[in-house]
């Protein structure tokens, strides 16, 4: 428990440092009013807007006002939309979360069996094909994959929609497009697009883990004991290759949530990634800062979950050790 609290304290400190860096960074990039304002506006209107947004104050004052408001739970209003920044982000979070979830599921459900197979049947044609595919998977640029997926499955074959989020269904109080056929169809291409790179990594990790573990004494012993191949793979092997994969999945999930920017913008997916990239373009500082704080929190929570999972998978690991 102490451990968890300490981690959360670290998180708060990290968020504070990060908010300062981002705030200073955007402050030095330029003047949001120069981009936002109507070219037809007069000087008087410009001056009034600058004052309304509080941009006429010196940097340190702006930052302390911001900090004071954050302590009261107010991340400020977006310069562009004039709505609370946090509200804008949270409103788009479900779309991003469901996409990240779907692609992680694809990466794990396909990646582990393929990787284990490639490791067990090392040198076979099947194994070589899988490995060649995985190299292709993480070396082909993400945006190009996306456009090819659209071209093949949406334009030429017409099986799946080009872009957008489909119908949103409700299940146990959760609204998500995972629960409708139309929603799943819309999600298929962006989820595959996001998954491909991670799938390739999971395959490689599972394969190298399998090759290492299958030569271990306990696997030989299990074989000597006459256990079925199925049991050896499913119980003894799988459990032992899982630690690096869990780490990877945990970190990938954070990355998928925070940086699905390319996929979200090509597939017009109304998630946070698209919001953040638009906000950066328009120097919408409140949204950028709030977003990064939310992302820092997500990463820290995921790290924590990964650590907790370690001790579940491998009883030899206790949290004190993880901490070291």
């Amino acid at each position, binding site marked *: 428990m102490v451990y968890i609290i300490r981690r959360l304290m670290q998180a708060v400190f990290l968020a504070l440092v990060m908010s300062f860096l981002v705030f200073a960074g955007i402050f030095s990039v330029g003047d949001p009013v120069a*981009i936002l304002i109507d*070219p*037809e506006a*007069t000087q*008087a209107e410009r001056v009034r807007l600058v004052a309304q947004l509080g941009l006429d104050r010196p940097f340190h004052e702006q930052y302390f006002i911001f900090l004071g408001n954050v302590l009261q739970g107010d991340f400020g209003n977006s310069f*562009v939309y004039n709505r609370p920044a946090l509200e804008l982000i949270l409103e788009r979070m479900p779309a991003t979360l469901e996409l990240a979830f779907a692609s992680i599921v694809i990466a794990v459900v396909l990646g582990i069996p393929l990787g284990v197979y490639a490791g067990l049947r090392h040198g076979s044609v099947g194994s070589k094909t899988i490995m060649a595919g995985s190299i292709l998977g993480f070396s082909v640029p993400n945006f190009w994959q996306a456009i090819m997926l659209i071209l093949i499955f*949406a*334009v030429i074959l017409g099986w799946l929609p080009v872009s957008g989020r489909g119908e949103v269904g409700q299940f146990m109080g959760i609204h998500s497009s995972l629960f409708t056929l139309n929603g799943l169809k819309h999600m298929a291409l962006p989820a595959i697009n996001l998954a491909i790179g991670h799938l390739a990594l999971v395959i490689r990790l599972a394969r190298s883990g399998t090759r290492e573990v299958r030569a271990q004494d306990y696997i030989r012993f299990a074989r000597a004991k006459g256990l079925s191949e199925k049991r050896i793979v499913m119980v003894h092997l799988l459990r032992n290759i899982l630690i690096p994969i869990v780490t990877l999945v945990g970190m990938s999930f954070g990355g998928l949530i925070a940086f699905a920017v390319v996929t979200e913008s090509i597939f*017009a997916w109304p998630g946070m990634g*698209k919001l953040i990239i638009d906000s950066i373009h328009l120097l919408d500082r409140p949204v950028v800062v709030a977003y990064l704080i939310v992302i820092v929190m997500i990463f820290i929570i995921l790290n924590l979950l990964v650590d907790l999972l370690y001790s579940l998978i491998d009883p030899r690991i206790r949290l004190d050790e993880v901490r070291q």
Partner: protein
Amino acid sequence: MAKLSKLVSATALAALLVSTAGAQSITAGLTAAPSSMDPHFATTGQNQQLAAVMYDRLIHIADDGSFAPGLATDWEVSDDQLTWTFNLREDVTFHDGSPFTAADVVFTFDRIPEVPNSPAPFTQRLAAIDSAEAVDDYTLVVTTSSPAPGLPTDLSTIYIVSETVNDASSADFDRSIASNGTGPYRQVSYSPGENLVLERNDDYWGDLPDFEQVTIRFLDNSASRVASIQAGEVDFIDSVPPNDLDRLRELNDVTVVSAPSARMLYMGVDQLEDTTVQIDPSVGNPFLDHRVREALSLAINREALVDRIQFGSGLPANQFPPEGIFGHNPDIPEFEYDPERARELLAEAGYEDGWAMAIHGPTGRYVNDTEVLLAIGQMWSQIGIDVDVVSVPANVYFGRATDREFSSFMVAFGITTGESSLAYRNVLATVDDDRGWGSNNRFRYSNEEFDAALESAFDAFEDADREAALQEAARIAAEDIALIPLYWEGNNWAVNGDLDFTPSPDGRSLVTNLSTR
């Protein structure tokens, strides 16, 4: 077997029903998402092209640029030119069924200054108005403190909302609970950054649009926008990238509609002082010399910019208003391309060896902007100037341009009001913060003669006088080579083969301009 054929015919019938329903509802893919659904939040194009189909103005603009009756059927101004009387259209109802009256107009005028934190407020467009009074339900009297010939133009951009809006915030419009206009479509739902669903207002007083329902999706990625219309997922897209025009034209079930826009790209050159920031002080400021500006203009091959870089989309420009926009001066000659003459002029001006400088432009703001700037850099190099081309991300660029960190830079100004006075007031008039002139004059051109012509345009009550004054301003700017015009950007739309799209002069992607073939 009989059962099967019955099933087949039932399916066919269902498919038929679906396809007729399909003709009644269409989906449009627009590039730019609005910052708010509040029609009074921002004057930006993406906000206005949506507001314009849901809300009427007192005065509308016809396709030829002239005024047309909107919610006001006619209007007149008193002899002292200070009192305007508007007769309002009767039997018009808002989307919630309540009747439209003069009180709603007064409410709208009062609401506009109260909309907080707008980055592009409408207040300037009401600045001339001293008071507005509803004399009776269908008569509105507006007084101004000084004669305001521009009032009808200003009012043609003010969206009238119902008094029932009350003290609703901009966010209430996003939630579709405050949206209440008199326009041909009414707002059903809006998901920010995703889509906007509109339904036809069957009680509309004007021409009814062809479609019962329009879903507008916001697709800012050009590749997926083009793919969406190819796959038949949307019926209409705007901002077709010029690079894709030929490919789309070859498709049978897609029609490409192109029209020149009133958005002119230009190179501004610093004309304030004897030195300029991007050029070595020992050289001085060459741009002060008319011959140098003329040489820079002569060195630019505008046809090539449009044909090669923009794939034929656009028109070489010689003044802000293109033909068809009020104030266009047809007597101004095309700006020629003559690098020989340009070199001679530079020599005459004492710059036969040229000088070294950086030129600046934004990236990702205008269509193929970096390529255009590179081409200009090369064209200027050919007349002996040592040019360093610098492309700056748009979010940094405009702040730096306003801070006058550039000596020679590329910008566009789009005319959205159907006439050229605002372009002149903001870009070319001598900077004067008190009266709000020259707010975009980042290169500090200044000519009293030009300012006088513009002033008389703002003061003129008769259209003919105004037009003459604006044309005079255009002539002075062109003769001075106040800035170096490049081209008017082209607008390109693609529509599904069953539909027609009629571009309006302001270049907006109005879904009311879509019709069945």
